[in-house]
C-alpha cells in the first residue's frame, strides 16, 4: 500500500523523535511517553485479562525496551506501531513464562492446521449477538482465546488499527492478518455461543 504524503511526514517526524530519544533528549522522551503511555497501557491491560500487576510490569518492560531500541528505529513504520509491536512481544513473553504455570488456559495455537482443528464444522450458531448485553461474558471469551487471536481482534476493533499496521505490529503480511482476523472472529463467536448456551 502506498504511503500518503501525511504518512511520509509522520514517519519522518517519528524518526526524528526517536533519534532524539536515542540521544538522551529528555523532552523527546517525555513527548513519546505522553503521546503513547495510556494507549499502550490499555492495550496491554486488555490482553492480560485486566490483571493490573501484570500490565504494570509489562508496560514498564515495553518502554524500557523501546528506549534501548530507539537507535534501531528505521522509520519504515510509525512510532506507535513500533511501540505496539514491542508491547505485543512483551505480552507474548509474559504468556510464554506463564505457560508452565497455566499451560491449559493460555497455550497459544501456532499453525493454521492447529487452528483449523479447533473448529467443529458441525457446530450450529444460535445467532447470539455478542454485543447485546453481557460484556463480562465477552471479556471471558476474549481471555480464553489464543493470544494471537486476542491481539489481532484488539488491534482491529479496539485500537481501530488498519490491517497494514496490524501486520507491522504482528510481523505478518496484510493477507495473513485478514485470514487471522477471520479465524479469530469465528473463534470468538463460537466461544460466546457456547458460553451463552451454557447459561440458558
Amino acid at each position, binding site marked *: 500500500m502506498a504511503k500518503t504524503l501525511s504518512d511520509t511526514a509522520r514517519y519522518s517526524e517519528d524518526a526524528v523523535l526517536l533519534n532524539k530519544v536515542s540521544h538522551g533528549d529528555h523532552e523527546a*522522551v517525555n513527548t513519546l511517553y505522553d503521546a503513547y503511555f495510556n494507549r499502550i*497501557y490499555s492495550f496491554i491491560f*486488555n490482553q492480560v485479562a485486566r490483571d493490573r500487576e501484570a500490565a504494570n510490569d509489562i*508496560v*514498564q518492560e515495553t518502554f524500557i525496551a523501546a528506549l534501548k531500541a530507539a537507535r534501531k528505529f528505521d522509520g519504515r513504520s510509525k512510532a506507535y506501531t513500533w511501540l505496539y509491536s514491542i508491547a505485543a512481544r512483551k505480552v507474548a513473553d509474559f504468556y510464554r513464562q506463564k505457560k508452565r504455570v497455566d499451560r491449559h488456559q493460555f497455550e497459544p495455537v501456532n499453525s493454521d492446521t492447529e487452528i483449523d482443528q479447533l473448529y467443529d464444522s458441525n457446530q450450529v450458531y444460535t445467532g447470539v449477538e455478542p454485543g447485546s448485553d453481557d460484556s463480562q461474558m*465477552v*471479556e471471558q471469551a476474549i481471555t480464553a482465546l489464543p493470544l494471537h487471536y486476542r491481539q489481532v481482534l484488539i488491534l482491529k*476493533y479496539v485500537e481501530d488499527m488498519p490491517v497494514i499496521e496490524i501486520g507491522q505490529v504482528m510481523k505478518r503480511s496484510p493477507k495473513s492478518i485478514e485470514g487471522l482476523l477471520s479465524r479469530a472472529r469465528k473463534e470468538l463467536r463460537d466461544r460466546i455461543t457456547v458460553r451463552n448456551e451454557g447459561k440458558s
Partner: protein
Amino acid sequence: MMEHSNEEIIKKALKGACRPVVPPPELKRGLRERLILESGSASGGHHSMLNQAKLGLIAAAGAISGVIGYGIWLSLHIPV
C-alpha cells in the same frame, strides 16, 4: 452486508469488553522518572562506545607511528 453487520457486532462487543483504562498515576510518574534517568545512561553508553572507538584508533595510530619511527631509526644507526 451480513459480514459487515457481524463485524459491527464484534466491534461493539470488543469495545464494550476492552474499555480504555486509566493507568495508576504512581506507575506513570515512576516510569517517567526511570525513563529519564535511563535515557541519560543509554545515550551515555552510546557516547562511551564512540569514545572507546576513538581511543582505540588513536592508540593504533600511535603504535604504527612508533614502529615506523623505530624502522627509520634502525636504518640510520645500523651500519650496512
